[in-house]
Protein backbone atom coordinates (compact mmCIF):
# COMPACT_ATOMS: atom_id res chain seq x y z
CA UNK A 1 0.00 0.00 0.00
CA UNK A 2 2.82 2.34 0.98
CA UNK A 3 4.59 1.41 -2.24
CA UNK A 4 1.51 2.39 -4.24
CA UNK A 5 1.04 5.65 -2.36
CA UNK A 6 4.71 6.59 -2.72
CA UNK A 7 4.65 5.86 -6.43
CA UNK A 8 1.52 7.98 -6.90
CA UNK A 9 3.11 10.74 -4.86
CA UNK A 10 6.19 10.69 -7.07
CA UNK A 11 4.26 10.61 -10.33
CA UNK A 12 2.09 13.53 -9.27
CA UNK A 13 4.85 15.65 -7.77
CA UNK A 14 7.17 15.02 -10.75
CA UNK A 15 4.39 16.11 -13.03
CA UNK A 16 4.56 12.82 -14.94
CA UNK A 17 0.77 12.62 -14.57
CA UNK A 18 -1.89 14.98 -13.27
CA UNK A 19 -4.34 12.41 -11.96
CA UNK A 20 -3.95 8.97 -10.46
CA UNK A 21 -7.04 6.82 -10.81
CA UNK A 22 -7.09 4.35 -7.97
CA UNK A 23 -9.21 3.19 -5.06
CA UNK A 24 -9.90 4.85 -1.74
CA UNK A 25 -11.87 4.13 1.39
CA UNK A 26 -15.25 5.84 0.96
CA UNK A 27 -17.94 6.44 3.56
CA UNK A 28 -19.17 2.90 2.84
CA UNK A 29 -16.64 0.50 1.46
CA UNK A 30 -14.03 1.08 -1.17
CA UNK A 31 -14.66 3.27 -4.18
CA UNK A 32 -12.82 4.73 -7.15
CA UNK A 33 -10.75 7.82 -6.46
CA UNK A 34 -9.32 10.49 -8.70
CA UNK A 35 -6.20 11.68 -6.93
CA UNK A 36 -5.06 14.98 -8.41
CA UNK A 37 -2.57 16.19 -5.82
CA UNK A 38 0.47 14.47 -4.39
CA UNK A 39 -0.70 15.38 -0.92
CA UNK A 40 -3.76 13.20 -1.39
CA UNK A 41 -1.87 10.13 -2.57
CA UNK A 42 -2.08 8.65 0.94
CA UNK A 43 -5.74 8.02 0.25
CA UNK A 44 -4.92 5.29 -2.24
CA UNK A 45 -5.44 1.74 -1.08
CA UNK A 46 -5.44 -1.73 -2.50
CA UNK A 47 -7.13 -4.72 -0.91
CA UNK A 48 -9.66 -7.39 -1.92
CA UNK A 49 -12.45 -4.80 -1.86
CA UNK A 50 -10.95 -3.03 -4.88
CA UNK A 51 -13.48 -4.65 -7.16
CA UNK A 52 -14.02 -1.80 -9.63
CA UNK A 53 -12.45 -1.97 -13.05
CA UNK A 54 -11.04 1.53 -13.29
CA UNK A 55 -10.14 1.16 -16.96
CA UNK A 56 -13.65 2.33 -17.63
CA UNK A 57 -12.51 5.83 -16.65
CA UNK A 58 -10.05 5.83 -19.57
CA UNK A 59 -12.91 5.21 -21.93
CA UNK A 60 -13.20 8.20 -24.31
CA UNK A 61 -16.90 8.56 -23.41
CA UNK A 62 -15.84 10.05 -20.07
CA UNK A 63 -15.62 13.56 -21.43
CA UNK A 64 -15.74 15.05 -17.94
CA UNK A 65 -12.45 13.35 -17.03
CA UNK A 66 -10.49 14.83 -19.91
CA UNK A 67 -10.05 18.05 -17.96
CA UNK A 68 -8.12 16.11 -15.30
CA UNK A 69 -5.21 15.76 -17.71
CA UNK A 70 -2.82 12.88 -18.15
CA UNK A 71 -3.81 9.88 -16.05
CA UNK A 72 -2.02 7.14 -14.25
CA UNK A 73 -4.27 4.19 -13.55
CA UNK A 74 -4.04 1.43 -11.00
CA UNK A 75 -4.97 -1.93 -12.50
CA UNK A 76 -5.44 -5.50 -11.42
CA UNK A 77 -4.69 -8.18 -13.97
CA UNK A 78 -8.28 -8.25 -15.23
CA UNK A 79 -8.39 -4.46 -15.47
CA UNK A 80 -5.17 -4.43 -17.50
CA UNK A 81 -6.97 -6.49 -20.13
CA UNK A 82 -9.46 -3.67 -20.51
CA UNK A 83 -6.70 -1.09 -20.84
CA UNK A 84 -5.14 -3.33 -23.47
CA UNK A 85 -8.49 -3.57 -25.19
CA UNK A 86 -8.81 0.19 -25.36
CA UNK A 87 -5.30 0.43 -26.82
CA UNK A 88 -5.94 -2.46 -29.22
CA UNK A 89 -9.05 -0.74 -30.50
CA UNK A 90 -7.36 2.66 -30.83
CA UNK A 91 -9.39 4.35 -28.13
CA UNK A 92 -6.35 5.46 -26.17
CA UNK A 93 -2.66 5.58 -26.93
CA UNK A 94 -0.29 3.53 -24.82
CA UNK A 95 1.92 6.55 -24.20
CA UNK A 96 -1.02 8.63 -22.96
CA UNK A 97 -1.48 6.61 -19.80
CA UNK A 98 0.83 5.46 -17.03
CA UNK A 99 -0.20 2.00 -15.91
CA UNK A 100 0.43 0.96 -12.34
CA UNK A 101 -0.15 -2.77 -11.97
CA UNK A 102 -0.99 -4.37 -8.65
CA UNK A 103 -0.55 -8.07 -7.93
CA UNK A 104 -3.96 -9.41 -7.02
CA UNK A 105 -4.98 -12.33 -4.87
CA UNK A 106 -8.67 -12.17 -5.73
CA UNK A 107 -11.42 -9.73 -4.83
CA UNK A 108 -14.65 -9.96 -2.90
CA UNK A 109 -18.05 -9.70 -4.58
CA UNK A 110 -18.89 -6.17 -3.52
CA UNK A 111 -16.67 -3.28 -2.46
CA UNK A 112 -18.83 -2.74 0.61
CA UNK A 113 -18.06 -6.18 2.01
CA UNK A 114 -15.33 -6.96 4.53
CA UNK A 115 -11.95 -7.52 2.84
CA UNK A 116 -11.58 -11.10 4.06
CA UNK A 117 -11.57 -13.64 1.25
CA UNK A 118 -13.52 -16.81 1.98
CA UNK A 119 -15.32 -19.31 -0.19
CA UNK A 120 -18.47 -17.26 0.43
CA UNK A 121 -17.09 -13.80 -0.17
CA UNK A 122 -14.68 -14.34 -3.06
CA UNK A 123 -15.91 -13.21 -6.43
CA UNK A 124 -16.67 -16.33 -8.51
CA UNK A 125 -14.79 -14.89 -11.49
CA UNK A 126 -11.52 -14.95 -9.54
CA UNK A 127 -11.54 -18.73 -9.80
CA UNK A 128 -11.10 -18.43 -13.56
CA UNK A 129 -8.39 -15.77 -13.33
CA UNK A 130 -5.30 -16.14 -15.50
CA UNK A 131 -3.81 -12.74 -14.74
CA UNK A 132 -2.96 -12.32 -11.08
CA UNK A 133 -0.04 -10.20 -12.18
CA UNK A 134 -0.71 -7.71 -14.98
CA UNK A 135 1.93 -7.58 -17.71
CA UNK A 136 0.91 -4.40 -19.50
CA UNK A 137 2.35 -2.09 -16.87
CA UNK A 138 4.81 0.74 -16.38
CA UNK A 139 5.12 -0.03 -12.68
CA UNK A 140 4.25 -3.16 -10.78
CA UNK A 141 3.61 -2.89 -7.08
CA UNK A 142 2.63 -5.07 -4.16
CA UNK A 143 3.70 -8.48 -2.99
CA UNK A 144 2.71 -11.67 -4.78
CA UNK A 145 -0.44 -12.94 -3.10
CA UNK A 146 -1.69 -16.48 -2.54
CA UNK A 147 -4.41 -18.00 -4.70
CA UNK A 148 -7.87 -16.96 -3.50
CA UNK A 149 -10.16 -19.56 -1.96
CA UNK A 150 -12.38 -21.42 -4.36
CA UNK A 151 -15.88 -19.98 -4.62
CA UNK A 152 -18.75 -21.89 -3.12
CA UNK A 153 -21.08 -20.73 -5.91
CA UNK A 154 -22.23 -23.29 -8.44
CA UNK A 155 -21.01 -22.86 -12.00
CA UNK A 156 -24.23 -21.47 -13.42
CA UNK A 157 -22.79 -21.30 -16.96
CA UNK A 158 -22.25 -25.03 -17.01
CA UNK A 159 -25.60 -25.66 -15.37
CA UNK A 160 -27.38 -23.57 -17.98
CA UNK A 161 -25.52 -25.20 -20.83
CA UNK A 162 -26.78 -28.56 -19.64
CA UNK A 163 -30.40 -27.46 -19.34
CA UNK A 164 -32.89 -28.26 -22.10
CA UNK A 165 -33.26 -25.27 -24.39
CA UNK A 166 -36.81 -24.52 -23.17
CA UNK A 167 -35.60 -24.29 -19.59
CA UNK A 168 -32.89 -21.86 -20.62
CA UNK A 169 -35.56 -19.80 -22.36
CA UNK A 170 -37.67 -19.78 -19.21
CA UNK A 171 -34.65 -18.89 -17.08
CA UNK A 172 -33.67 -15.89 -19.20
CA UNK A 173 -37.23 -14.81 -19.69
CA UNK A 174 -37.63 -14.55 -15.96
CA UNK A 175 -34.25 -12.88 -15.41
CA UNK A 176 -34.67 -10.39 -18.24
CA UNK A 177 -38.20 -9.53 -17.17
CA UNK A 178 -36.58 -7.51 -14.41
CA UNK A 179 -34.44 -5.46 -16.79
CA UNK A 180 -35.47 -1.82 -16.77
CA UNK A 181 -33.21 -0.75 -19.61
CA UNK A 182 -31.23 1.73 -17.56
CA UNK A 183 -28.17 0.58 -19.53
CA UNK A 184 -26.02 0.60 -16.41
CA UNK A 185 -24.36 -2.54 -17.85
CA UNK A 186 -23.22 -0.50 -20.81
CA UNK A 187 -22.26 2.66 -18.99
CA UNK A 188 -19.96 0.90 -16.57
CA UNK A 189 -18.36 -1.35 -19.18
CA UNK A 190 -14.78 -0.34 -20.01
CA UNK A 191 -15.15 -1.86 -23.46
CA UNK A 192 -18.41 -0.09 -24.38
CA UNK A 193 -16.95 3.02 -25.92
CA UNK A 194 -19.15 3.83 -28.92
CA UNK A 195 -19.95 7.52 -28.87
CA UNK A 196 -23.52 6.64 -29.83
CA UNK A 197 -24.61 3.16 -28.85
CA UNK A 198 -26.75 1.18 -31.27
CA UNK A 199 -29.36 1.04 -28.51
CA UNK A 200 -29.55 4.84 -28.54
CA UNK A 201 -29.88 5.17 -32.27
CA UNK A 202 -33.34 5.85 -33.53
CA UNK A 203 -32.88 5.86 -37.30
CA UNK A 204 -33.51 3.05 -37.67
CA UNK A 205 -34.52 1.98 -34.21
CA UNK A 206 -33.05 -1.48 -34.16
CA UNK A 207 -33.45 -1.95 -30.46
CA UNK A 208 -36.57 -0.74 -28.72
CA UNK A 209 -36.04 1.34 -25.61
CA UNK A 210 -38.99 -0.04 -23.65
CA UNK A 211 -38.36 -2.42 -20.82
CA UNK A 212 -40.30 -5.28 -22.37
CA UNK A 213 -38.91 -8.83 -22.38
CA UNK A 214 -38.65 -8.62 -26.17
CA UNK A 215 -36.58 -5.45 -26.17
CA UNK A 216 -34.54 -6.60 -23.19
CA UNK A 217 -33.61 -9.81 -24.98
CA UNK A 218 -32.69 -7.93 -28.14
CA UNK A 219 -30.56 -5.52 -26.14
CA UNK A 220 -28.71 -8.15 -24.14
CA UNK A 221 -28.07 -10.38 -27.16
CA UNK A 222 -26.77 -7.41 -29.12
CA UNK A 223 -24.55 -6.28 -26.28
CA UNK A 224 -23.13 -9.76 -25.89
CA UNK A 225 -22.47 -9.98 -29.62
CA UNK A 226 -20.56 -6.71 -29.44
CA UNK A 227 -18.60 -8.06 -26.49
CA UNK A 228 -17.60 -11.36 -28.06
CA UNK A 229 -13.84 -11.71 -27.95
CA UNK A 230 -13.62 -8.30 -26.27
CA UNK A 231 -15.18 -8.80 -22.85
CA UNK A 232 -12.43 -8.91 -20.23
CA UNK A 233 -14.65 -10.72 -17.73
CA UNK A 234 -14.38 -8.08 -15.05
CA UNK A 235 -17.99 -8.59 -14.01
CA UNK A 236 -18.71 -4.91 -13.67
CA UNK A 237 -21.96 -5.14 -15.67
CA UNK A 238 -23.31 -7.74 -13.30
CA UNK A 239 -22.30 -5.68 -10.30
CA UNK A 240 -23.82 -2.50 -11.70
CA UNK A 241 -27.15 -4.05 -12.67
CA UNK A 242 -29.78 -2.64 -10.31
CA UNK A 243 -32.05 -5.51 -11.30
CA UNK A 244 -29.37 -8.04 -10.35
CA UNK A 245 -29.53 -9.89 -13.65
CA UNK A 246 -26.60 -12.33 -13.99
CA UNK A 247 -25.34 -10.80 -17.23
CA UNK A 248 -21.88 -12.21 -16.64
CA UNK A 249 -23.19 -15.71 -17.37
CA UNK A 250 -23.90 -14.88 -20.99
CA UNK A 251 -20.54 -13.18 -21.38
CA UNK A 252 -18.70 -16.05 -19.73
CA UNK A 253 -20.46 -18.53 -22.00
CA UNK A 254 -19.49 -16.54 -25.07
CA UNK A 255 -15.90 -16.21 -23.86
CA UNK A 256 -15.71 -19.98 -23.52
CA UNK A 257 -17.21 -20.47 -26.93
CA UNK A 258 -14.78 -17.97 -28.50
CA UNK A 259 -11.89 -19.74 -26.84
CA UNK A 260 -12.99 -23.17 -28.05
CA UNK A 261 -13.70 -22.05 -31.59
CA UNK A 262 -10.94 -19.56 -32.25
CA UNK A 263 -8.34 -20.49 -29.63
CA UNK A 264 -8.47 -16.94 -28.41
CA UNK A 265 -8.45 -15.71 -24.86
CA UNK A 266 -8.69 -12.02 -24.00
CA UNK A 267 -5.35 -10.94 -22.59
CA UNK A 268 -3.52 -7.75 -21.72
CA UNK A 269 -1.43 -7.93 -24.88
CA UNK A 270 -2.71 -5.04 -26.99
CA UNK A 271 -1.01 -6.30 -30.13
CA UNK A 272 -3.10 -9.47 -30.45
CA UNK A 273 -6.01 -8.82 -32.84
CA UNK A 274 -9.50 -9.53 -31.52
CA UNK A 275 -11.15 -12.65 -32.93
CA UNK A 276 -14.22 -10.92 -34.31
CA UNK A 277 -12.93 -8.71 -37.05
CA UNK A 278 -10.26 -11.27 -37.89
CA UNK A 279 -10.74 -14.72 -39.47
CA UNK A 280 -9.01 -17.82 -40.69
CA UNK A 281 -9.94 -19.35 -44.00
CA UNK A 282 -10.27 -22.72 -42.32
CA UNK A 283 -12.47 -21.68 -39.40
CA UNK A 284 -14.84 -24.45 -38.35
CA UNK A 285 -18.17 -24.31 -40.13
CA UNK A 286 -19.95 -27.42 -38.95
CA UNK A 287 -23.16 -25.43 -38.48
CA UNK A 288 -23.31 -24.20 -42.08
CA UNK A 289 -25.18 -26.21 -44.72
Amino acid at each position, binding site marked *: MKELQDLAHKLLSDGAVTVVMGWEQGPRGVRPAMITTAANSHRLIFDPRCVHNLATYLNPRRSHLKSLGKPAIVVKGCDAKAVAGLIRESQIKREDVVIIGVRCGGVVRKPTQAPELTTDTVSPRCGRCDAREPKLVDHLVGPALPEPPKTCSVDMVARLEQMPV*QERWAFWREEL*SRCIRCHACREICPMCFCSTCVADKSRPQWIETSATPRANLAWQMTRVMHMAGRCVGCGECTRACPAEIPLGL*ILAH*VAQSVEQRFSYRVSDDPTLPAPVGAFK*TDDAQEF*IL
Partner: protein
Amino acid sequence: MTEPNESFEPKIVAFVCNWCTYTGADLAGTSRLQMAPNVRVVRLPCTGRIDPLFVIKAFERGADGVIVSGCHPADCHYTAGNYHARRRFAIFRDVLSFMGVDTGRITFSWVSASEGGKWRDVVNETTERVRQLGPFIDYQALSFASAAMPKGAELPS
Protein backbone atom coordinates in the same frame (compact mmCIF):
# COMPACT_ATOMS: atom_id res chain seq x y z
CA MET B 1 -42.99 -25.28 -27.31
CA THR B 2 -46.15 -26.05 -29.16
CA GLU B 3 -47.27 -29.28 -30.72
CA PRO B 4 -46.42 -29.60 -34.42
CA ASN B 5 -49.40 -28.37 -36.33
CA GLU B 6 -50.07 -29.71 -39.82
CA SER B 7 -51.97 -26.64 -40.94
CA PHE B 8 -49.27 -24.29 -39.68
CA GLU B 9 -47.35 -22.51 -42.42
CA PRO B 10 -44.15 -21.11 -41.02
CA LYS B 11 -43.02 -17.61 -41.91
CA ILE B 12 -39.36 -17.72 -42.79
CA VAL B 13 -37.14 -14.76 -43.57
CA ALA B 14 -34.01 -15.35 -45.64
CA PHE B 15 -31.18 -12.85 -45.54
CA VAL B 16 -29.07 -13.59 -48.57
CA CYS B 17 -26.10 -12.10 -50.34
CA ASN B 18 -26.60 -10.43 -53.66
CA TRP B 19 -23.87 -12.20 -55.56
CA CYS B 20 -24.28 -15.89 -54.82
CA THR B 21 -27.36 -16.99 -52.93
CA TYR B 22 -29.71 -14.42 -54.42
CA THR B 23 -28.62 -15.42 -57.89
CA GLY B 24 -28.84 -19.08 -56.87
CA ALA B 25 -32.38 -18.52 -55.60
CA ASP B 26 -33.18 -16.77 -58.84
CA LEU B 27 -31.86 -19.76 -60.73
CA ALA B 28 -34.03 -22.05 -58.63
CA GLY B 29 -36.99 -19.95 -59.68
CA THR B 30 -36.20 -19.72 -63.37
CA SER B 31 -35.47 -23.44 -63.37
CA ARG B 32 -39.02 -23.93 -62.02
CA LEU B 33 -37.80 -26.00 -59.09
CA GLN B 34 -40.62 -26.83 -56.68
CA MET B 35 -40.04 -25.46 -53.22
CA ALA B 36 -41.92 -24.34 -50.15
CA PRO B 37 -43.48 -20.89 -50.58
CA ASN B 38 -42.76 -19.94 -46.96
CA VAL B 39 -39.56 -18.02 -47.46
CA ARG B 40 -39.36 -14.26 -47.90
CA VAL B 41 -36.02 -13.22 -49.31
CA VAL B 42 -34.22 -10.07 -48.22
CA ARG B 43 -31.26 -9.31 -50.45
CA LEU B 44 -28.14 -7.73 -49.00
CA PRO B 45 -24.82 -6.96 -50.63
CA CYS B 46 -22.89 -9.58 -48.67
CA THR B 47 -23.26 -11.92 -45.70
CA GLY B 48 -20.75 -9.62 -44.06
CA ARG B 49 -23.51 -6.98 -44.04
CA ILE B 50 -25.96 -9.21 -42.19
CA ASP B 51 -26.08 -7.98 -38.64
CA PRO B 52 -27.41 -10.37 -35.99
CA LEU B 53 -29.89 -7.59 -35.26
CA PHE B 54 -31.58 -8.41 -38.57
CA VAL B 55 -32.29 -11.89 -37.29
CA ILE B 56 -33.52 -10.57 -33.95
CA LYS B 57 -35.78 -8.09 -35.74
CA ALA B 58 -37.19 -10.83 -37.94
CA PHE B 59 -38.17 -12.86 -34.87
CA GLU B 60 -39.59 -9.73 -33.20
CA ARG B 61 -41.81 -9.05 -36.17
CA GLY B 62 -43.18 -12.54 -36.31
CA ALA B 63 -40.75 -14.79 -38.22
CA ASP B 64 -40.82 -18.43 -37.17
CA GLY B 65 -37.48 -19.18 -38.76
CA VAL B 66 -34.55 -17.41 -40.41
CA ILE B 67 -32.11 -18.38 -43.16
CA VAL B 68 -28.77 -16.65 -43.58
CA SER B 69 -27.01 -17.57 -46.77
CA GLY B 70 -24.17 -16.34 -48.94
CA CYS B 71 -21.15 -17.22 -51.03
CA HIS B 72 -19.00 -20.27 -50.34
CA PRO B 73 -15.68 -19.62 -48.64
CA ALA B 74 -13.16 -18.11 -51.06
CA ASP B 75 -15.99 -16.93 -53.36
CA CYS B 76 -16.92 -13.67 -51.66
CA HIS B 77 -17.40 -10.81 -54.09
CA TYR B 78 -15.76 -8.57 -51.48
CA THR B 79 -12.99 -11.10 -50.78
CA ALA B 80 -13.65 -11.78 -47.10
CA GLY B 81 -17.18 -10.75 -46.10
CA ASN B 82 -18.32 -14.32 -45.70
CA TYR B 83 -15.33 -15.24 -43.55
CA HIS B 84 -16.25 -12.46 -41.16
CA ALA B 85 -19.89 -13.53 -41.24
CA ARG B 86 -18.89 -17.09 -40.47
CA ARG B 87 -17.20 -16.07 -37.23
CA ARG B 88 -19.99 -13.71 -36.28
CA PHE B 89 -22.75 -16.24 -36.84
CA ALA B 90 -20.83 -19.02 -35.12
CA ILE B 91 -20.97 -16.85 -32.01
CA PHE B 92 -24.50 -15.63 -32.59
CA ARG B 93 -25.75 -19.18 -32.89
CA ASP B 94 -24.17 -19.96 -29.51
CA VAL B 95 -25.75 -16.86 -28.00
CA LEU B 96 -29.20 -17.72 -29.34
CA SER B 97 -28.88 -21.24 -28.04
CA PHE B 98 -27.66 -20.08 -24.63
CA MET B 99 -30.59 -17.67 -24.35
CA GLY B 100 -32.96 -20.55 -25.07
CA VAL B 101 -33.73 -20.16 -28.76
CA ASP B 102 -33.85 -23.50 -30.55
CA THR B 103 -31.12 -23.28 -33.19
CA GLY B 104 -33.34 -25.34 -35.47
CA ARG B 105 -35.10 -22.08 -36.23
CA ILE B 106 -32.09 -20.66 -37.96
CA THR B 107 -30.22 -22.03 -40.95
CA PHE B 108 -26.84 -20.94 -42.22
CA SER B 109 -25.82 -22.03 -45.66
CA TRP B 110 -23.49 -21.35 -48.53
CA VAL B 111 -25.37 -21.36 -51.83
CA SER B 112 -23.57 -20.29 -54.96
CA ALA B 113 -25.08 -18.72 -58.05
CA SER B 114 -25.17 -22.07 -59.79
CA GLU B 115 -26.71 -24.01 -56.90
CA GLY B 116 -30.41 -23.58 -57.57
CA GLY B 117 -30.98 -27.11 -56.39
CA LYS B 118 -29.17 -26.54 -53.14
CA TRP B 119 -31.28 -23.44 -52.47
CA ARG B 120 -34.42 -25.50 -52.97
CA ASP B 121 -33.11 -28.03 -50.47
CA VAL B 122 -32.20 -25.36 -47.93
CA VAL B 123 -35.67 -23.81 -48.25
CA ASN B 124 -37.49 -27.12 -48.01
CA GLU B 125 -35.42 -28.46 -45.15
CA THR B 126 -35.71 -25.28 -43.14
CA THR B 127 -39.44 -25.01 -43.75
CA GLU B 128 -39.98 -28.59 -42.65
CA ARG B 129 -37.77 -28.20 -39.59
CA VAL B 130 -39.53 -25.01 -38.49
CA ARG B 131 -42.92 -26.58 -39.20
CA GLN B 132 -42.00 -29.31 -36.75
CA LEU B 133 -40.92 -26.74 -34.16
CA GLY B 134 -44.22 -24.90 -34.55
CA PRO B 135 -44.94 -21.19 -34.51
CA PHE B 136 -42.41 -19.18 -32.54
CA ILE B 137 -45.05 -17.92 -30.14
CA ASP B 138 -42.54 -17.86 -27.30
CA TYR B 139 -40.76 -15.00 -28.98
CA GLN B 140 -43.85 -13.28 -30.28
CA ALA B 141 -45.46 -13.37 -26.85
CA LEU B 142 -42.55 -11.39 -25.45
CA SER B 143 -43.82 -8.24 -27.11
CA PHE B 144 -47.09 -8.19 -25.24
CA ALA B 145 -45.76 -8.97 -21.82
CA SER B 146 -44.79 -5.94 -19.84
CA ALA B 147 -41.54 -6.29 -18.02
CA ALA B 148 -40.57 -5.05 -14.64
CA MET B 149 -44.16 -5.41 -13.45
CA PRO B 150 -44.81 -7.85 -10.70
CA LYS B 151 -46.00 -10.96 -12.46
CA GLY B 152 -46.42 -13.40 -9.67
CA ALA B 153 -44.40 -14.37 -6.71
CA GLU B 154 -40.86 -15.33 -7.47
CA LEU B 155 -40.45 -17.92 -4.78
CA PRO B 156 -37.17 -19.36 -3.62
CA SER B 157 -36.34 -22.45 -5.60
